[in-house]
């Protein structure tokens, strides 16, 4: 029977048997890591009583929480399996054996690689499916089955990439120490160098973001992806590890490494087993790389134009020399070879010099690369998020939607070109102070040249340049473009959108509920005015005047514009999007939650030492106060501090900032809490009634700390709940009357009866 030249099923089976102990151990660890958390939740829910269970909110699992444990195991597992299976390459007699048997190197390479990957694939699939099943069985847990496939794909791609790197390292070296060193170098060093290079240029140039066909984007290499998060917490929901471009890039990289590794294994001699380097040239290269790394940090600082202190220099050089010579000594154990390696250290220095020269050259090129207006056919102006949107500065949907729109207005082109010239001059002078005045804002501009080249720069523009006193002049030019106007006043399309969630909510919505909410929101958004749309998408500076930002609730959208992942917040506003708001409140203020709050507060009335009420009018942010008082039925009255109220009720033209209240009024203050409690169960009509957000805290245990006999502090264990209540005008008036009386405010008027 003709045998397959490329693959041996029998050898694969033997390989699986040889590695079964380690493989099973990893599989168990992976299963425990991925199933441990959902299992604990399941057990915790199972032990709750029925009423408590009913009152618990739903808990949504985001994809990062789900996939991360499974993913992280694949950093180690493929390396260990490859090192085990290919261990014969480190031992001379084992290497001779494998070279003498009637299996070609190709066959052994492919068969054992497949064997290692089979372990990873099985581990990933089993862990993912088990984890998902347990989450799905978990009460009150909402999990999306769409998480399963991306998790499996990304984890397997990671395993492939890590395995291919390990194979490459194994082929180049013949001892376990050098296997590990070279694996780490291949895994991290290229991307680190790219990152340092691009960062150095971006830092020194200031006006551009160097990226080479997005290959330098740190997200693209799946090995780095989990460690890079956007500032927005919710960006994890489409974490870079699950990004399609990351998957493709990493897969192609893995294939390239596999192919290179194949040829390295094929031409490797059996007699190189047990030697630190399997090929001539590998030893000095690794040595030089290790010596270069500490120097790179110094070079990076120099390339950024930063001062490098003497101590830093000394430490850097010392560590570099240590790394360089120690490696040689450990791997060759030869003083003679150590001496021979001395002059080659200069190459490490030279490499760093090249790094600095490359950064400086690139910087100079960028700064001198200024096209003439006649050479520019159009410009794209990316929506300036940093300037205009001070709420969620990482929201970037509109940036991506606008950055490819081309403006061919000659005046605009001329304006941008001259602004670029001015900006570059300031960069060269290293003096940006002029741009920090009110007259300047910056835009990310792409200059589309007639030659076909695109030049991307951050340009500081004098807002008066085009005539007019406000940046509306510039905006007016931009808004002439219909495509631009449509882009900045539209919501993400269904195709672009991957995920929706509610921010600042401790209530979790199911996928269907979110979709329903979004559907209603879209209708309301699309019928709003452009000014309202800007407000709703947090792109209006006036938003701070109109809202208490801490009390706003928003829908967070996450998805892709092309290959770029975005996040964007949309305000749920009681006036502009009342239906959405109503739906949101109905969910958050379900009967069970209302009953739970009322029961908790009433239960603690007699036993809690401390109460706090945060009152905030959602329709008018100037109506708010914080009230704190102590329960005179509990604890030592002498120790209890006086109640206090802090805030303002613009509605009544009253300011209660730091108003002290005598203890005798505690029973009156308790009435305010009771008003709120009684109002809780009323239905909320967002359009008509006074909608108030309250946070009620009760503390059962107040612990004082003493300095001798003096109290110098206290700690408390509080239970807090945020509620939305419908306060009538009468109730509002009553609250104000009580507050005014208690705080002895001069405009308090005692009611007639």
């Amino acid at each position, binding site marked *: 029977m003709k045998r397959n030249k490329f693959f041996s099923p*029998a050898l694969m089976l033997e390989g699986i048997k*040889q590695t079964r102990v380690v493989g099973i151990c990893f599989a168990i660890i992976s299963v425990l890591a991925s199933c441990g958390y959902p299992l604990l939740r399941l057990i915790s829910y199972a032990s709750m009583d029925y009423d408590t269970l009913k009152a618990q909110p739903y808990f949504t699992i985001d994809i990062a929480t789900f996939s991360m444990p499974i993913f992280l195991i694949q950093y180690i597992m493929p390396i260990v399996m490859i090192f085990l299976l290919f261990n014969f390459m480190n031992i001379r007699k084992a290497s001779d054996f494998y070279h*003498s048997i*009637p299996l070609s190197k190709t066959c052994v390479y492919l068969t054992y690689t497949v064997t290692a990957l089979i372990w990873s694939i099985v581990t990933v699939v089993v862990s993912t499916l088990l984890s998902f099943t347990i989450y799905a069985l978990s009460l009150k847990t909402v999990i999306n089955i769409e998480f399963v496939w991306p998790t499996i794909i990304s984890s397997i791609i990671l395993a492939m990439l890590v395995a291919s790197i390990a194979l490459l390292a194994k082929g180049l070296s013949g001892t376990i120490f050098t296997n590990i060193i070279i694996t780490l170098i291949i895994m991290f060093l290229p991307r680190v160098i790219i990152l340092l290079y691009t960062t150095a240029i971006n830092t020194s140039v200031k006006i551009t973001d160097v990226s080479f066909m997005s290959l330098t984007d740190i997200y693209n290499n799946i090995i780095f992806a989990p460690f890079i998060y956007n500032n927005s917490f919710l960006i994890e929901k489409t974490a870079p590890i699950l990004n399609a471009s990351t998957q493709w890039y990493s897969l192609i990289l893995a294939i390239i490494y596999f192919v290179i590794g194949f040829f390295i294994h094929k031409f490797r001699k059996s007699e190189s087993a047990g030697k630190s380097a399997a090929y001539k040239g590998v030893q000095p290269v690794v040595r030089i790389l290790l010596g270069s790394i500490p120097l790179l940090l110094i070079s990076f600082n120099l390339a950024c134009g930063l001062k490098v202190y003497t101590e830093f220099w000394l430490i850097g050089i010392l560590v570099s020399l240590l790394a360089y010579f120690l490696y040689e000594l450990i791997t060759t154990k030869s003083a003679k070879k150590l001496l021979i390696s001395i002059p080659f250290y200069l190459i490490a220095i030279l490499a760093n010099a090249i790094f600095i020269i490359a950064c400086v050259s690139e910087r100079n090129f960028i700064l001198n690369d200024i096209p003439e207006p006649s050479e520019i056919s159009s410009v794209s102006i990316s929506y300036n998020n940093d300037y205009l949107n001070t709420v969620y500065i990482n929201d970037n949907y509109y940036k991506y939607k606008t950055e490819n729109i081309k403006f061919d207005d000659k005046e605009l082109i001329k304006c941008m070109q001259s602004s670029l010239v001015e900006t570059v001059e300031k960069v060269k002078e290293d003096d940006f102070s002029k741009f920090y005045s009110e007259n300047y804002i910056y835009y990310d501009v792409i200059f589309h040249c007639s030659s076909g080249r695109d030049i991307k720069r951050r340009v500081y523009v004098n807002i008066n340049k085009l005539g007019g006193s406000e940046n509306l002049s510039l905006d007016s030019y931009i808004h002439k473009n219909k495509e631009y106007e449509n882009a900045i006043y539209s919501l993400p399309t269904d195709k672009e959108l991957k995920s929706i969630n509610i921010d600042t909510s401790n209530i979790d919505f199911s996928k269907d509920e979110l979709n329903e909410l979004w559907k209603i929101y879209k209708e309301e958004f699309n019928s709003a005015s452009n000014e309202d749309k800007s407000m709703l998408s947090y792109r209006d500076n006036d938003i701070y005047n109109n809202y208490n930002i801490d009390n706003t609730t928003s829908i967070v959208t996450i998805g892709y514009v092309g290959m770029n992942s975005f996040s964007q917040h949309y305000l749920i506003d009681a006036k502009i999007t009342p239906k959405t708001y109503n739906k949101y409140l109905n969910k958050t203020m379900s009967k069970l939650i209302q009953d739970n709050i009322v029961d908790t507060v009433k239960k603690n009335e007699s036993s809690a030492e401390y109460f706090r009420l945060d009152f905030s009018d959602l329709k008018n942010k100037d109506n708010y106060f914080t009230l704190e008082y102590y329960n005179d039925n509990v604890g030592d009255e002498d120790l209890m501090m006086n109640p206090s109220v802090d805030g303002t009720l613009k509605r009544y033209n009253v300011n209660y900032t730091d108003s002290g209240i005598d203890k005798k009024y505690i029973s009156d203050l308790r009435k305010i809490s009771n008003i709120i409690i009684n109002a809780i169960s009323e239905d909320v009509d967002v359009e008509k009634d006074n909608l108030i957000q309250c946070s009620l805290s009760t503390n059962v245990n107040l612990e004082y700390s003493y300095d001798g006999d003096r109290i110098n502090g206290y700690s408390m264990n509080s239970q807090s709940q945020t509620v939305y209540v419908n306060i009538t005008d009468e109730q509002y008036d009553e609250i104000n009357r009580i507050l005014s009386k208690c705080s002895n405010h001069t405009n308090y008027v005692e009611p007639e009866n």
Partner: protein
Amino acid sequence: MIKVENVTKKFDDFIALKNMNCEISEGCIYGLVGSNGAGKSTFLRLITGIYKPDEGKISIDEKPVWENQEAKSDFVFVPDELYFISQATLNKMAKLYNACYPNFSFERYKMLVDKFGLDPKKKIASFSKGMKRQAAIICALSCQTKYLFFDETFDGLDPVMRNLVKNLIFDDICERQATAVITSHSLRELEDTCDQLTLLHKGGVVFESDVQNLKTSLFKIQAAFNIDYDKKLFTDNGIEVLDFKKTGVVSNSIIRGDKDKVIEILSGFKPIILDILPLSLEEVFIFEMGEMGYKFEDVFEKEEEKNEKK
């Protein structure tokens, strides 16, 4: 047939084998002798495709060996330093060999295990050195390949086992026209086993010959005559004398030539004593190499010296 043509192998600056040529025909047991560092193991590793020659070519049945799965299926190699999978038992190694060699026979394997008396379920790591060697031989012989290569394999075996292995090899040769190549640094070990012998020294072939021819072409004669005589008595009568020692009337001569003819000639002188004594391979080599200008001690470790070291 194994053909080695102008093969040279270097390790950095060291030349392990230089311009080596040899032909190993089928159905024989080929012995390769030489001292440590002569190039025996290198030679075996070259013909088993472990090393790639720097110059020259090697073929087995006209198929190049290097990276040739088909050619490698025809041979099995038992090296001087044995390799077993970590924590493996004999059964486990057999399965690995079975995965690699198309003609591996579990029937033969079981028969060999019984013959050698090893426990196939016990970890090989717990075996003695000799038992490990037996385990390797069992796996190799179970592969039923056309060519068998043993690198100093017999050195670690006791005489009983050596005999057993020898007979098993003979069986393979008889039944399957197998060919065995055995290396050793001891002539005594190969004397009764090999058909052909090649002597390696410092990476080159010093001497190559059929063993039978070697043993019959040279012989020792112990003679005594009534007449006064010396070496001339032999040489004047056309007898080729390589060595002549006379003590009193008794002489011991190493003679190359036709034994019967020499006896006939010497009988004509009415000898008092005329005995033909067989020469050991070692003695044959001493004289053959002496003719070529080599000192035996420079090339070989004598048996006595080896025993003293042990």
